[in-house]
């Protein structure tokens, strides 16, 4: 009888512990955002960081930027995604923009994708009649960008039964808006191979 009671007690404890573990859900932990990500061969965070880092360094060394007396005004144009997978190219240009801004060698004007907000703000201040005259950000005083940054990302993917080989090439250009001249251009190549 004593033995039987002990067995019941132990079983209850085990079930309780199992329930506790079951209710606690998936485990969450923070990782290193800069750590190399090799989950699969698709475009990932490490690729984004490598591209942004390489392009920023190269762009800051270009004659157009480093040789400029004042920090030139630049705007971000589209980066075309020519790969077969979905890549948010805006994240790449935004990351490059952040790093360039931190360098202090470049100033950015609003890009086409940000113009809606800019226009609405100017309209609100200038045309609503609600604002004090000398505090209004006046229409017609936006600064035009000397350069625009645009580029593309393309890939070549090859698969066998056991191997997947992906080659990415990211190309970025700095174009003088007035002259139309290509002032700087660079590319970053990435090769990733996944085996089973």
């Amino acid at each position: 009888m004593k033995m039987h009671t002990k067995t019941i007690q132990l079983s209850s404890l085990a079930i309780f512990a199992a329930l506790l573990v079951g209710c606690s859900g998936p485990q969450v932990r923070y990782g290193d955002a800069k750590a190399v990500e090799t989950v699969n061969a698709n475009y990932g965070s490490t690729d984004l960081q490598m591209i942004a880092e390489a392009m920023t360094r190269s762009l800051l060394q270009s004659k157009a930027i480093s040789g400029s007396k004042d920090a030139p005004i630049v705007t971000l144009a589209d980066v075309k995604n020519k790969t077969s997978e979905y890549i948010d190219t805006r994240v790449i240009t935004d990351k490059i923009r952040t790093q360039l801004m931190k360098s202090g060698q470049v100033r950015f004007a609003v890009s086409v994708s940000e113009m809606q907000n800019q226009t609405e703000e100017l309209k609100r201040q200038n045309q609503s009649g609600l604002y004090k005259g000398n505090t209004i950000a006046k229409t017609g005083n936006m600064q035009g960008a000397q350069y625009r940054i645009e580029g593309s990302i393309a890939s070549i993917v090859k698969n066998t039964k056991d191997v997947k080989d992906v080659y990415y090439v990211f190309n970025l250009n700095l174009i003088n808006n007035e002259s139309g001249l290509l002032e700087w251009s660079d590319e970053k190549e990435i090769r990733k191979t996944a085996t089973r």
Partner: protein
Amino acid sequence: MQLIQKTFLVSVGLSLVCLAGCASKPPAAVPEQAIVGQVPADPPKNPVISAEALKADSKSIAVTDIYFKKEGKNLILIEETRHKTNNSVTTTIAPKTIEVDADKADASALTGGANSSAFPVKFTNLADPKATAPGTAPVITPVDPGTNSNSASNVETQSQKKSGYESKMEYGELRYLANPIRGLLIKSGYKVVQAKPSTVTPNQGDEYFDIVKRIKAGDFPDANYVLYGVLAEISVVDNIDDIPGTKSSSQQVVLEVTVDFNVVDTQSTQIVASFVASGEGKEVRIDGKDNAFKPSMAKLMKLASLDLAEDVRKNLAAQNFITNNPGSAGYERNLKRRLDDDASTLKVYK
């Protein structure tokens, strides 16, 4: 042993003093600006207006209002009714004049142009004897359906309608563009004198622009120089464009003024500066077309006149008539002149 310790301490102390001395080097003395808030003037480089001449004796200048010449065309309809009886002929002529723009007249029914529906009557130069000669089809149009010959009463009535245009030239002065230019010349140290207004005579011709004639006639009695401008073109442009990347559009209304300027020495009648300047007044309205935006012409004119004055300043400075940096000398000269010359000026004695 104590001596070594003392020597060591003294050396360390000296080193520290030296280090501190190097670290706290006083900043190099900056030469203090002679007069705070006042910038010394650049000397004028125009060979005609030397710096010495401008300094020693303030030069005076008259600035005329901006001359203009406008071509207009009057459309004239003449209805002539002739009553003929046995003994006499009575003629009644009823002219009717309609003023139209020159470009509208040019684009009218003469060529079957864009305004042919608005102005269906053919425009013909009435001053041209060939065009107005009797029997010339486009000019004389006997169209009166009521034209009849009443043989019973032996009275004959005949109607004729003529149509055509008369070219006319209008001369005058725009009175609201030159004041900012006068202001900038005052800032530059010139004494700006009032010019006599120009009068237009009947059948005025291009001699209206003869500034030498006006100088000799004494229209600018106290002026060493006369700055006069002739309006080359004035236009209003209204454009609506989409703003890329937005659902909005921008309406831009721009008033543009282009003026041909000359500066003439009143003694020698030599032209000492000559240039074309332009000014632009612009108003931009986001989504203006959606709410039928009407720009303020008064505001556009003010902006255009200020912009024109700025362009005049650049051109006068480029030709060394005024300095890019008038500094305080001009202000001082003008203040001194006002205090010295004008008895009615409020004077403050210290």
